[in-house]
């Protein structure tokens, strides 16, 4: 039975079924070749308008979405700003309703508050794509990670993926955990104890503080950016000690599988979570992730737009 995309929004992978995830990945696969054509554009979203609202700094996600929208011929508007929660001003809902009044069909939003896109999606008829909410989810990043793994390893089921780094504050890790476990992959998360979320095993993953144990038998090592300010928040004693214990470098990789993939959502702190030699080495698929991100985001926009069309036709 073929899955049909019915959702108005993509707020996270937590509520998606394995079939829905597969549909996005399959759709991305079929859209991938568009970017290889001399004329990299299809008219799929012609006449439709997408607003990119980034309330938090972003370079690669914002550019990736914008390019995905342009390749599908959508009209795009961009808003980049900061939110100050406590100041009295326009609420997020009002901001988005204003944009919706301009007949915008899809909102792509990054917001520092966990749950912000969920609340909007429930309250408003516009389609909402979550481009990262607080420390909660970053579904398109996880989808492009899964797409890349599938591309390189042939499948997701039975693949062991290790996440190393600040799991606690990582929306990338959370979305990947939801997605990968649904697709039958084995997930291990590894960090100093201070950066592991409470009871994370209840999400169907194993957790360890030991790097060697995490990467042993791993088919994929997905690194997370460590934020240097966490040191002042008592999460670890120093960047130096963190790097000594958790950096992926050539020495550490001696304990890993010979065909292991190294992934990173970026931006990379070279020399902290990842050594330059490994980042630029043969295991690294970091730039493939970026390329695949485009196809995955095109797929998401295409599917949401199709679901909207069906609703309108009814």
């Amino acid at each position: 039975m073929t899955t049909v995309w019915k959702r108005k929004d993509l707020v996270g992978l937590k509520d998606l079924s394995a079939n829905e995830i597969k549909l996005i990945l399959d759709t991305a696969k079929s859209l991938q070749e568009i970017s290889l054509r001399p004329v990299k554009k299809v008219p799929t979203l012609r006449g439709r308008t997408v607003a990119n609202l980034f309330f938090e700094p972003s370079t690669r996600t914002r550019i990736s979405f914008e390019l995905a929208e342009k390749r599908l011929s959508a009209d795009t508007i961009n808003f980049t700003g900061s939110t100050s929660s406590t100041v009295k001003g326009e609420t997020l809902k009002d901001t988005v309703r204003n944009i919706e009044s301009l007949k915008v069909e899809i909102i792509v939003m990054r917001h520092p508050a966990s749950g912000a896109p969920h609340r909007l999606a429930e309250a408003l008829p516009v389609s909402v794509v979550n481009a990262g909410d607080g420390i909660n989810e970053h579904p398109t990043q996880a989808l492009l990670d899964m797409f890349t793994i599938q591309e390189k390893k042939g499948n997701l089921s039975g693949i062991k993926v290790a996440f190393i780094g600040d799991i606690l504050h990582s929306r990338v890790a959370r979305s990947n955990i939801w997605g990968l476990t649904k697709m039958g992959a084995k997930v291990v998360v590894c960090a100093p104890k201070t950066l592991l979320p409470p009871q994370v095993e209840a999400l169907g993953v194993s957790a360890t503080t030991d790097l060697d144990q995490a990467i042993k038998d791993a088919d994929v090592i997905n690194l997370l950016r460590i934020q240097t300010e966490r040191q002042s928040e008592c999460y670890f004693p120093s960047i130096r000690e963190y790097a000594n214990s958790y950096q992926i470098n050539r020495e550490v990789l001696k304990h890993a599988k010979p065909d292991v993939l190294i992934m990173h959502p970026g931006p990379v702190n070279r020399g902290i979570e990842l050594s330059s030699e490994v980042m630029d080495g043969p295991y690294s698929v970091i730039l493939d992730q970026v390329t695949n991100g485009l196809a995955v985001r095109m797929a998401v926009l295409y599917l949401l737009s199709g679901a909207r069309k069906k609703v309108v036709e009814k």
Partner: protein
Amino acid sequence: MNLLIKQAHVIDPKNQVDGVFDLLIKKGSIAELKKEIKADGVEVFDAKGLHLFPGLIDMHVHFREPGFEQKETIVSGAKAALKGGFVAAVTMPNTNPPCDHQSVIDNIIRKANEVPFYIFPSATLTKERAGKELSEMADLKRAGAWAVTDDGSWVSDSLLMRRAMEYASMLNLLVISHAEDHRLTSDGVMNESVVSTKLGLKGIPDASEEIAASRDIILAELTHAPLHLTHISTKGTVELVRAAKAKKLPVTCDVTPHHISLTDEMLEHYDTNFKMMPPLRTEEDRKALVSGLKDGAIDAIATDHAPHTDEEKMAEFSDAPVGVTGLETALGVILTKLYHGKILSLSEIVMKMSMRPSEILKLPNGFGQIKVGTEANLTLVDLNHEWMVRKEEFVSKSKNSCFIGAKFKGKAVVTICRGKLWQRQS
């Protein structure tokens, strides 16, 4: 006011009364309580099928005045309380200016008379609630303060807290503690649990409350000063209080209707009406709180009525202010979950919502019991009235209830306060 209440089922655990009686109010005071009273020329209220409680007393409310009148005023808060069956409340001092000066206390008490309603205000423990210097407690007491607390700003300085407890107990002022180690709370916005991990929200560990509660209990032992821990929320804190009581320490506590009926699973939709401090905890904690009520470890039920405007609560979850309203839903929650849920008897509920609060606060004779010769402060309750909580029906200025849409069985139908009849509820 003169009124003859006929055939009400009176529940007064203080005087071991549990049966159907007539009650005569003359000039606002309880004149007679007998099986059958005949009085001519007096308005008669047929209370057949209704229960008569001593007026409910809420040990923890925020009426926001002065300073935050857009959320609630003393008058609007008092009206919400009367609707919910309450005749008296202890207001928290986190107003602007804070209740650290006798003029603020004086103003609050005066405004409560307009309704009429009883407010037994708490004053700050430290000047400006800043946790640095003691407030002028003797002066505040003279102005009418009944308790001292810095509420949401737990006094982290143990020496200052020791002195505050000694000084307050000398003045017969109850020390109320909102036990929370703010360093451990950090930037948490909900209970730290598997649910916070699933929702991607920062958690607040049980230890934040339990460390603070432990220290305060130890200081109560050192100083012999009465300590009241308010809105306790974890299994660990229930155990701490139970242990303190076993040692005969002067420690009491209360719990809110939301903590005994809801858990952190409610946060699934990031609805800010479920954001409060302390946060909703796990089912295990909820059960421990209910057990604590049953076995007496927990003395009282208090609402922590904390109004906020819709605009403020419209913010994203991590940015929205903490707190929910509670006065108009408390009795419905308690009767539904604890009485109809066959956990507490009506006598036990009256103990938790009237008798014990009155004893802990050392209120005058007209509170916490039904006593001939005292002013009439009473609540008439229909145990079987089924109703749904509707946002548009709140009397409080704010509508930030975590029970909107909930169905309850049991409601206050008439509240009599200061010997005056508050309008009957539909």
